[in-house]
């Protein structure tokens, strides 16, 4: 069946079997490999993408269900070649080690900040409780999300400082 999904702002069409999972479509058909398949059993959150702005596990949704809807992957955080504040914050606060959980963490974090711009530590930990990290022990992930929140609240002038030369 033919489906069209708006991925990171651009409409993309694919011909898929109904049983193809969204995460596989994103990685294999659309070549956006920033979204990772970790456990494939809906437990780890490494496959998290935003569907109409909300974090969902792309290993637990059929691509067909996303037909006509908007998906944001980690690649979509970049704007005109500039890092999103959350990406800059993860780098600044050393919020990653191997990086496998990081796309999911950043997307979940950005969705949290859209709902709650200055979350407490407990609120961040609660919000990321569907994203498992094996490396960091979560402390710097929490700090990164909170730092991004402060950066985004500070306004555009401050946000410019969060860009990093690639």
């Amino acid at each position, binding site marked *: *069946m033919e489906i069209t999904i708006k991925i990171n702002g651009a409409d993309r069409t694919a011909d898929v*079997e*109904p*049983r*193809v*999972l969204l995460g596989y479509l994103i990685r294999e058909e659309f070549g956006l490999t920033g979204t990772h398949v970790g456990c*494939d*059993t*809906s*437990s780890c*959150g490494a496959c*998290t993408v935003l*569907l109409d702005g*909300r*974090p*969902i*596990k792309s290993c*637990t*949704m*059929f691509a*067909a*269900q996303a*037909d006509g809807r908007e998906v944001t992957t980690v690649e979509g955080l970049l704007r005109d070649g500039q890092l999103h504040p959350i990406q800059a914050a993860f780098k600044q606060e050393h919020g990653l080690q191997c990086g496998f959980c990081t796309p999911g963490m950043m997307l*979940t974090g950005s969705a949290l900040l859209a709902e709650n711009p200055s979350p407490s530590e407990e609120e961040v930990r*609660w*919000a990321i*409780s*569907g*994203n498992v990290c094996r490396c960091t022990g979560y402390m710097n992930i929490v700090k990164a999300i909170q730092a991004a929140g402060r950066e985004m609240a500070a306004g555009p002038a401050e946000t410019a400082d969060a860009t990093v030369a690639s």
Partner: protein
Amino acid sequence: MLPSRFEYHRPDSLEEATHLLAELGDEAKVLAGGQSLIPVMKLRLAAPAHLVDIGRIGLDTIAETDGHLAIGALARHRDLERSDLLKARYPVMAAAAPLISDPIVRNLGTIGGSLCHADPAGDWASVMLALQASVVVRSTRGERELAMSEFLQDTFTTALEPDEILTEVRVPQPAGASGGTYLKLERKVGDFATVATAVHLSLSDGAIERAGIGLTAVGSKNLQATDAEESLAGTEPNEAAFAEAGRLAAEASSPVTDVRGSADYKRHVVDVYVRRGLARALEMARAA
């Protein structure tokens, strides 16, 4: 892991959905949030030839009407979690919602899907047993309403006919002085419950009018601890009464020993959680 092949249908309305099910019968499964069905299909424990995706037919409102709380079957766990109405007037539901799976799963999972999946470790069914809720199901043949205790039949088995869709959950409006909570023991966020209890109390002139106790993950289906409930009806709410209720509830449960704990341990937790839940419910009912 890939499910086996199926044909995918996405009706635009409830009517279209019921007609599809009438046509496809037991060859079809209804897909709502998919957070239980898709994992099961990926493991090929279920392999329906047809999926009817009802994700866009609405049925997601949460509102009081006609003396009860009407919850659309497609209300997502996350919306129930954020509902001010539930926090104010339906504390057992408000306590349970944030404890279901994890926040990401809650963005898609639905209350109707959870009830129809009928996993004995599912949270909503215990809540609905404690609250004496009922469900409305629809097909091309008409509509019927079933009490939750009638709806839940066995492990992963409900009274739903192959051509029926659950459309609404109905929860009686609370009596004046009432309260309740949901207590869940889990090894980590997102795990299934080791044990969980839904407890609801309503008072009348200081005595217990009615107690509702639902138990999660300690039987072949979600259990209603009717002996414990009956032991409390009409009595003075005190520690001794709650201790007896806890004992009866533990006796009524039949947990299995597994990675989450021994049967004895789980039965003990039922006792503790029922007592603790009753104490909290009493506090709330008195404050109301």
